[in-house]
């Protein structure tokens, strides 16, 4: 799903989207990888500074929030009997919700580390999984 979000930006034309997909696939194939294996929006995270990573992830969080709001406004397509339609809606909403949870957690940790000024000096960065810690940091 994120391949589509990141490569099919709303402001670009269909032919530009196709060109981006072709270039992306060609590059990955050159390294023996498939496009579906990686999330292009996060692929370069390791090479960014903490400040840059914060900017990228904050933009991504905004996109997730807008997408959740848009999906909430879309008319319900399926009836109670239409299990496939309901499952598709549920799938997209589930993935967006999970993405937002991860972004909130990661941003909270990056902001704290950035404020301490320790990241650029090589301090340890590891994901936080304890929600109590995240709430305390927020």
């Amino acid at each position, binding site marked *: 799903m994120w391949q589509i979000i990141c490569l*099919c930006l709303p402001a670009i034309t269909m032919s530009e989207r196709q060109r981006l997909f072709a270039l992306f696939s060609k590059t990955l194939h050159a390294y023996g990888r498939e496009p579906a294996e990686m*999330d292009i929006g996060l692929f370069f*995270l*390791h090479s960014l500074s903490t400040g840059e*990573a914060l900017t990228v992830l904050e933009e991504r969080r905004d996109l997730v929030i*807008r997408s959740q709001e848009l999906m909430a406004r*879309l008319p319900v397509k399926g009836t109670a009997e239409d299990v496939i339609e309901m*499952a598709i809606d549920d*799938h997209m909403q*589930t993935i967006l919700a999970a993405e937002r949870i991860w972004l909130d957690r990661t941003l909270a940790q990056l902001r704290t580390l950035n404020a301490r000024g320790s990241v650029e000096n090589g301090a340890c960065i590891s994901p936080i999984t304890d929600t109590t810690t995240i709430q305390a940091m927020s």
Partner: protein
Amino acid sequence: MLSKDVELALAVLWREIAQEHFLRSLTIPEALAALEQRRDVADHLLAQIYREPAHSRCGDKAAFMLAHCRELLEAELAWLDRTISCLQSSIRAAP
């Protein structure tokens, strides 16, 4: 802040994603079989991630990616369980 045009384009994009969802091209029995296989794969991948060391190496941003994979796989697995259960009920209820 996005313009209305871009906001509309984003809405259209999400509609397109829904229209191209893999479930749409399957019958309910086919979907059930596909999702059960998908569940096995997701379960296997998640078990592999749980086996990874809890703490990353110093300065290793790959740990964020691992947490990302885990979060999405856990969500995917929960969705698969819900959907499989729903499809099984649907098949049982069919005349």
